[in-house]
């Protein structure tokens, strides 16, 4: 009964696939005292094996594509993928670059897109909440829209 209402906190693995670091700084801003996502138990972890969510920034360079795929496969199921920033969604300013393998959904399935260059911490938190809702549904085995 208690387990039903107290699921594990959301643990996030952050993967930088070639970002300019703008989005990464905004992710840190979401964790800092002003927004303080950690008060909900949401925290970054050092290995995908402990994660529920894969947070991807950057447009995915050629060198990073296989790493992204492998890390996605290493996250235990059920899992959710969030893409932070325009680069990971469309390629952004690197659109059609010879060195890109992305955007992210060319390589792995994406559940939540957070657009912006970079997106504000409020937008990132909104994306995380959306991902959390989807993850809870996946944990209960409910049908979720693709």
């Amino acid at each position, binding site marked *: 009964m208690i387990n039903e209402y107290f699921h594990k906190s959301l643990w996030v693995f952050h*993967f930088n696939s070639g970002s300019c670091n703008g989005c990464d700084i905004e992710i840190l801003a979401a964790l800092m005292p002003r927004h303080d996502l950690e008060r909900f138990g949401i925290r970054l972890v050092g290995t995908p094996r402990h994660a529920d969510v894969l947070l991807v920034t950057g447009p995915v360079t050629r060198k990073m594509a296989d790493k992204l795929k492998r890390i996605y496969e290493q996250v235990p199921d059920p899992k959710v993928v969030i893409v932070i920033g325009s680069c990971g969604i469309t390629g952004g300013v690197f659109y059609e670059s010879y060195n890109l393998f992305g955007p992210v959904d060319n390589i792995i399935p994406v559940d939540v897109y957070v657009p912006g260059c970079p997106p504000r911490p409020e937008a990132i938190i909104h994306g995380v909440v959306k991902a959390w809702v989807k993850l809870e549904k996946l944990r209960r085995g409910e049908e979720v829209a693709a």
Partner: protein
Amino acid sequence: MTLIKTGQGFWDPVVWLVSVALSALIVYWIWSKGRKDYKEGTEQDKPFLCGHPEPEKGKVHVRASNIYWGFTEALKGYYDPLIKSHTGVLSDYVGWLIGILALVSFIILVV
């Protein structure tokens, strides 16, 4: 009956066995609380190496020579000729034995 007093403490195999069994039970309980939803035989079952593929075990194995490489490096002048003389041919070793025996005999008997 099985208790041995050493002066510093005691040793009792029954106490030891009970302690080991208790520790094993605690370890098993902690292990059983771990996640069970990993899919065996997939990437979820492999070590995380920052996204890199797992190299062959032989390539990441730390060789025993890593422990004493400084020793062999410092005594290179002594080891290098020794390694060269180790041909692996039995007759060479027998030759060395006879030669050294002859030298020692000469030193003892003549000098």
